[in-house]
């Protein structure tokens, strides 16, 4: 199990969690909130936490329509900032709307599950790398 550390500016560790429905991510990292469910469930949970004042570290959506059809999503959430950030609230809300519209006519592609687990993990790790280089 890996604990991914994210440092606060000026030192100290920032608390963060990975919200995911991807078993590979849950198996590899420790600070995970594992959601047994769909991407939609992950997005809704993310929204609920952001609405409670936690902060959105990575964007809830992928960068292409193709990725929206995949069955896994991992999103990094930071500790409560104390106040609600309008932009984050809007981003998370709009993400859900966009996701649902794109997926409206479609079935989530589950044939390539193993591949998608890995792909989601790699994209998450790319994001973690991006976070770690910004200290």
């Amino acid at each position, binding site marked *: 199990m890996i604990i991914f550390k994210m440092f606060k500016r000026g030192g100290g560790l920032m608390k963060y969690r990975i919200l995911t429905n991807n078993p590979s991510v849950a198996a590899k990292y420790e600070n995970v909130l594992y959601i047994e469910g769909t991407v939609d469930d992950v997005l809704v949970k993310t929204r*609920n936490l952001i*609405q*409670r*004042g936690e902060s959105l570290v990575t964007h809830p959506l992928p960068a292409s329509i193709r990725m929206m059809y995949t069955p896994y999503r991992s999103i990094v959430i930071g500790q409560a900032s104390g106040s*609600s950030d*309008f932009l984050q*609230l*809007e981003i998370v809300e709009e993400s859900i709307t966009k996701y649902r519209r794109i997926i409206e006519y479609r079935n989530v592609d589950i044939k390539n599950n193993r591949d998608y687990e890995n792909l989601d993990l790699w994209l998450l790790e790319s994001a973690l790398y991006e976070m770690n280089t910004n200290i």
Partner: protein
Amino acid sequence: MVKEIERYGIPIVHIATITTISTSVGANRIMPAVAIPYPVGNPKLSPAEEKAMRYELVDKALKTLETSINEQTIF
């Protein structure tokens, strides 16, 4: 919705978390809410504290309705 009700000449205060949206859809009396899941509450407080807080929020809301304004105002 806010605007259409106000069109009848009835003053209306919009208590909303994302006040920027409230502004862009054309509410005139706007009051920031506590948070989306509990615009006029706060589960972190004790029931008595929470009620006191809501009392204050409603008080503020009523005051906005008693205030004459000429343009969009966030109270």
